């Protein structure tokens, strides 16, 4: 009630300054009148009486000002005073201040770095106008286990025509193709994106020079046109401002450059150099392949005012119609829609969320440590605080003083943390796996600053609360009497210390368990056998151009290339295949085994084309039958080699050799029946943590492909073969360029890069968290045992053994650690479930990790308790008893 009354008075003064001033004037006037009357009664003249009254009052104006100060400015002055006092106190205890600031810098710095990443990836909107209206439409087929699939062009065009809530629907091919630019010196490789013409208008992008593509450009027409990205324009066309309208020779064909996009527009990838029209043939849109091949990433723009739900319902209506109209291709083909932003964040969200949680815990541990330091300090300043209370300082004022001190600490820590965090974002950009974080968006912006201020103030409150409350509970007379020792040091500090230790141990356990699970998972993945031997292998890709327009020419080139590559000194084996290792399977198809019921498989089969030397070069074991040989030529019996995964799942208990399969769901008279001639070991084609696919291999001579990957095996450093390899290709055909030259071991590491990145960061945070927690445990126990020095002295004087005294201190550490471990363990059992998706062959409640981490924590924390225990047991009774 009284607080409220005071508050109301202050509020009144704040909003009605003149009214309050007038009231004061009235009051002063009344006072002066009475004083004058008194003087008159004492027999003064009226003039003297008035003069003396004013003089006695001591300056009306000064009173008015002071009155006003009390009303309004008091808190500002108090605050400034508090800050000065805090700085003075901190300067008096530089060790404590440094320890607190370093701790906070670590905690806040880690948060700034990770939050910057979350901000750049998750929170910041995409750089497109009205980006919240952009949706990705994916094809979903439960029968084929398709999720988030790219769309077939015919379906995409039907959605575009049938959903009135869409302003437009466009599509592009996921990932970038490699196009060779010739006629400008050495052949150069361009990263090309293949898009529908309305790609730019749908995303809301305009050209900086010339024009962007339009919907009509989608179709194959007279002249072929491309649009350059800012990057492509600068790197490959010397930023020529008159480039628009000129032509360029790309993959042997002539393109007209119609426009250049502005620097901010680089989609779907930052590295895009140019956009080419997908160039569909308008006369063939009725072909079944136009509805059967799924390769377009579809993006729709909702009309202004249209809702996602309503557009989604319209989309489903179209999907249902297509299921009825085209049962052969669309019987099970569904579609789903989600905001483009959500789609692009995709699976980056979970790792970032887990990192953010981890650094959040780190900051809490840091706060607990600083809180403990301040608490110990506050307890040490007992007498000072008591004296100030006695001299009339309000308790609220003392609490505020304590909080100001915390705030000053946390602001300094926050500023240092911001600097550290900024530096750390640079390191993150450097360390991150490709494509996880978009580098150019990354950095410290206003959201990050708001976040820093928020966590800075919040930490000050968290670690300042204990010392502040501690201040409140003091009784000054007791402290003055006891000389600042004894009871005051007893329960209050100890209870707070206990709480701090328990929460620190619990938080450290959570962090360490999280990191431990990822480390275990990572080790499991590392141990996975790829199915081939990546050591000493070099891989590079070649895309054939328009000169190779028949299968014969392609095969002739491949054979010649392989032969020459094998002749490179140091190369022990060489082969070509249609896929880059650890980069997924290019083609998939249906399949059926001869004599089996139709349509019974419901899954996709990978299919690759390899030269006969592939299996020997990769050291893929041949399990049954044979691999390819010179007898498998174009025109001879079509043959296949299958992998073990396929043999196990579809030919269990049978001999697959000699059986025939067709790559159709329902065989037609035109179907090609391939005879299985061999079974080879399964390979991890996507990544080590993805199970091998079921696959078939064609002989390259029977199934030539225009995109091939050459593989070289050597006993030395595979990267050293690169110049020789380039030379071979140049001699063979100077119009072709080599791309993606990389040791296969590096490709394997890249496929693990994201897991490694996350594991490394979480591990680093966990180690820092663990160290801070251990320092915290040590700090609390050291303080408690220091205050029990006299007690220890007495015990020793009475004949206690050193071991018994040590145990007294250690016991407390053990008790608190065990409570912390139990609390943290129970929380961890539930919390780690969020990580399931990130773990490979490790359960989220993996007992080995849980117990192992708990043991490590217990052991380190007992060590931390041991040091003060040792000191206590060495207490010299005579000294200890005389101690203050």
């Amino acid at each position, binding site marked *: 009630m*009284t607080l409220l009354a005071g508050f109301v008075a202050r509020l009144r003064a704040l909003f009605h300054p003149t009214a309050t001033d007038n009231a004061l004037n009235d009051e002063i006037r*009344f006072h002066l009148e*009475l*004083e004058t009357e008194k003087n008159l009664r004492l027999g003064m003249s009226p003039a003297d009486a008035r003069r003396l009254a004013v003089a006695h009052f001591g300056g009306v104006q000064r009173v008015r000002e*002071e*009155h006003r*100060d*009390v009303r309004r400015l008091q808190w500002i002055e108090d605050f400034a005073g508090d800050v000065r006092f805090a700085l003075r106190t901190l300067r008096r205890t530089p060790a404590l201040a440094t320890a607190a600031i370093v701790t906070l810098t670590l905690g806040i710095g880690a948060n700034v770095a990770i939050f910057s990443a979350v901000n750049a990836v998750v929170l910041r909107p995409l750089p497109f106008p009205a980006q919240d209206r952009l949706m990705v439409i994916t094809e979903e087929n439960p029968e084929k286990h398709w999720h988030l699939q790219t769309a077939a062009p015919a379906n995409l065009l039907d959605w575009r025509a049938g959903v009135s809530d869409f302003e437009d629907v466009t599509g592009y091919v996921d990932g970038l193709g490699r196009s060779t630019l010739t006629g400008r010196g050495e052949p150069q490789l361009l990263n090309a994106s293949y898009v529908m013409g309305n790609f730019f208008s749908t995303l809301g992008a305009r050209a900086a020079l010339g024009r962007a593509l339009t919907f009509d450009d989608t179709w194959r027409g007279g002249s072929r046109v491309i649009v350059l990205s800012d990057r492509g324009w600068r790197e490959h066309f010397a930023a020529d401002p008159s480039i628009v309208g000129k032509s360029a020779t790309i993959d042997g064909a002539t393109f007209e450059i119609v426009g250049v996009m502005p620097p901010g527009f680089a989609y779907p990838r930052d590295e895009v150099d140019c956009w080419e029209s997908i160039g569909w043939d308008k006369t063939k849109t009725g072909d079944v392949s136009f509805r059967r091949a799924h390769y377009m990433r579809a993006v729709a723009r909702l009309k202004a005012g249209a809702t996602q739900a309503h557009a989604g319902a319209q989309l489903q209506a179209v999907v249902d119609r297509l299921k009825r109209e085209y049962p052969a291709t669309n019987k099970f083909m569904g579609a789903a829609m989600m905001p483009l932003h959500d789609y692009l964040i995709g699976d980056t969200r979970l790792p970032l969320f887990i990192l953010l949680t981890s650094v959040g815990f780190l900051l809490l541990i840091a706060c607990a440590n600083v809180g403990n330091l301040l608490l110990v300090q506050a307890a040490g300043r007992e007498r000072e605080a008591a004296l100030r209370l006695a001299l*009339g300082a309000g308790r609220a*004022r003392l609490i505020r003083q304590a909080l100001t001190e915390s705030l000053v600490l946390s602001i300094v820590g926050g500023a240092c943390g911001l600097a550290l965090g900024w530096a750390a974002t640079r390191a993150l950009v450097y360390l991150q796996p490709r494509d996880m974080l978009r580098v150019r968006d990354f950095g410290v912006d206003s959201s990050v600053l708001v976040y820093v201020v928020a966590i800075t103030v919040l930490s000050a409150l968290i670690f300042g609360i204990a010392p502040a409350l501690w201040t409140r509970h003091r009784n000054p007379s007791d402290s003055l009497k006891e000389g600042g020792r004894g009871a005051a040091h007893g329960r209050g500090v100890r209870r707070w210390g206990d709480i701090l230790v328990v929460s620190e141990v619990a938080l450290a356990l959570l962090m360490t368990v999280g990191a431990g699970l990822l480390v275990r998972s990572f080790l499991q993945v590392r141990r996975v056998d790829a199915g081939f031997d990546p050591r000493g292998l070099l891989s590079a890709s070649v895309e054939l151009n328009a000169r190779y327009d028949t299968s014969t020419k392609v095969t002739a080139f491949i054979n010649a290339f392989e032969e020459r590559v094998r002749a490179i000194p140091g190369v022990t084996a060489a082969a070509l295949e249609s896929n880059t290792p650890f980069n997924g399977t290019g083609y998939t198809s249906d399949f059926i085994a001869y004599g089996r019921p139709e349509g019974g498989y419901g899954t996709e089969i990978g299919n690759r084309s390899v030269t006969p030397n592939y299996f020997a070069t990769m050291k893929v074991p041949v399990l049954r039958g044979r691999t390819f040989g010179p007898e498998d030529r174009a025109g001879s019996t079509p043959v296949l080699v299958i992998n073990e995964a396929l043999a196990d799942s579809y030919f269990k208990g049978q001999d697959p050799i000699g059986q025939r399969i067709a790559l159709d769901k329902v065989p037609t008279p035109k179907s090609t029946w391939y005879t299985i001639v061999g079974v080879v070991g399964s390979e991890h084609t996507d990544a080590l943590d993805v199970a091998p696919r079921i696959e078939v291999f064609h002989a390259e001579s029977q199934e030539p492909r225009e995109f091939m990957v050459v593989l070289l095996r050597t006993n030395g450093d595979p990267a050293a073969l690169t110049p020789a390899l380039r030379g071979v290709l140049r001699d063979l055909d100077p119009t072709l360029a080599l791309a993606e030259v990389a040791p296969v071991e590096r490709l394997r590491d890249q496929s693990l890069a994201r897991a490694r990145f996350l594991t490394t960061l979480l591990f680093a945070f966990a180690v820092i968290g663990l160290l801070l927690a251990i320092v915290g445990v040590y700090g609390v126990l050291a303080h408690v045992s220091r205050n029990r020095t006299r007690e220890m002295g007495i015990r020793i004087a009475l004949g206690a053994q050193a071991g018994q005294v040590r145990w007294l201190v250690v016991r407390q550490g053990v008790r608190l650690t065990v409570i912390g471990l139990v609390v943290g363990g129970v929380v961890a059992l539930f919390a780690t479930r969020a990580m399931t998706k990130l773990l490979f062959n490790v359960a989220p409640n993996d007992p080995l990790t849980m117990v192992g981490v708990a043991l490590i924590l217990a052991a380190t924390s007992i060590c931390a308790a041991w040091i003060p225990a040792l000191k206590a047991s060495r207490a010299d009774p005579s000294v200890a008893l005389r101690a203050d």
Partner: protein
Amino acid sequence: MGTDQSDVLRGTLDLLILKTLTLEPMHGWGISARIQQFSRGLLDVNQGSLYPALQRLEQRGWIASDWRMTENNRRAKYYALTASGRRAVGAETANWRRYVQAVELILDIA
């Protein structure tokens, strides 16, 4: 917060005002006159500090004020103790006694 002299005096004045108001609600002049009277003229309240002090006490919620008519039919601002003000008198008195003790201890030592 500093521990300079003005603080000590301020604390003292506050206590004196509170103690005076335990008798009855009074206006500012009445308070200063009463303090002078009680201290047998030893303490002359600096009237310039009186009103800021009243303001401070009111903000703290220890006293409340309202405008009333005096017996001579003049408008004056009267101050009265609140419930918490009454409690504060006890605590502040104890604080004061302790302070005096402390100062005396120090004076004895030095």
